């Protein structure tokens, strides 16, 4: 039986000439998108991060296949350290073997940095692991929710 989630994303900004919170363009931006996604398994976790890299999601724990559009998941990540006594920038990487991620230039395994309060929502084809590292150790710092695509072998 099919199971569904509905993600909805809006991105808005004021026009550049606005006196409060001006946006990056001369006209306001108003992006709105919604979709109905067919999923099965849901894994949710709050993760403690440190300055030592670690595997966040192991691809082979979810699938033995890697067929594009069939095997995979939708990932929600959110840095929960905003407003805490200890905040951390959280680094996310995409690599089979090396979970260590540095903050500097030249680390071609670091896909993104989530500053405190920032979030991401993206598909993941489980072709490589997702790894995590951080600028500081912080307990209960990263929310991770995995929605596995229906059809994932």
């Amino acid at each position, binding site marked *: 039986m099919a199971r569904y*989630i*509905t*993600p909805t994303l809006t*991105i808005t900004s004021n026009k550049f000439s606005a006196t409060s919170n001006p946006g990056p363009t001369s006209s306001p931006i108003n992006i709105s998108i919604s979709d109905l996604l067919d999923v099965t398994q849901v894994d949710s976790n709050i993760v403690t991060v440190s300055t030592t890299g670690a595997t966040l999601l192991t691809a082979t724990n979810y699938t033995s296949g890697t067929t*594009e559009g069939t095997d995979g998941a939708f990932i929600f990540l959110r840095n929960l350290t905003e407003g805490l006594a200890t905040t951390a920038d959280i680094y996310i990487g995409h690599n089979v073997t090396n979970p260590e991620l540095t903050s500097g230039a030249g680390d*071609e395994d670091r896909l993104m940095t989530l500053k405190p309060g920032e979030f991401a*929502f*993206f598909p993941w084809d489980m*072709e490589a692991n997702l790894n995590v590292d951080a600028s500081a150790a912080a307990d209960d710092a990263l929310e991770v929710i995995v929605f596995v695509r229906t059809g994932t072998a």
Partner: protein
Amino acid sequence: MAVIKPTLTLTSNASTATTDAGPLSIALSLSATDSLTVDTVEAATITPTTTVSTLFDGSTKDIGSEVAGTNGGFIYFKNTSAADHDVYIGIEAHSASATELQGNADAQRLFTLKQGEFAFFPYDYNMDITVDAEDNAATLEYFLFNRG
């Protein structure tokens, strides 16, 4: 500096619902919002082909600086194809040539966007973003908001 406000909601019905049943026994209602400081914006709707190409060369962004949390951007992707054509998004080292993303066991393929699917995530410019498609008629909308 400028500000954009992304908001994501994730909802699902309980698994017992008769319409669009969710994956959990309880209904899900998640909401995340943020205020992001940005400066420049790149946006386009492109027609990727079945031959891979580099969409974003990270080494040319923010004059090649790649400091975590300082240099980078936020990417919005939407597969706007008029028919059921998948779009593949990959990552590649600056020094490497883009490699085809379709097929099994391809560690360069980060994700697949099926028709109507979207993504929103930070991007640190440490690598290139590549794009490939199932069909030459596929279309992809993108916005790249540079961190301010």
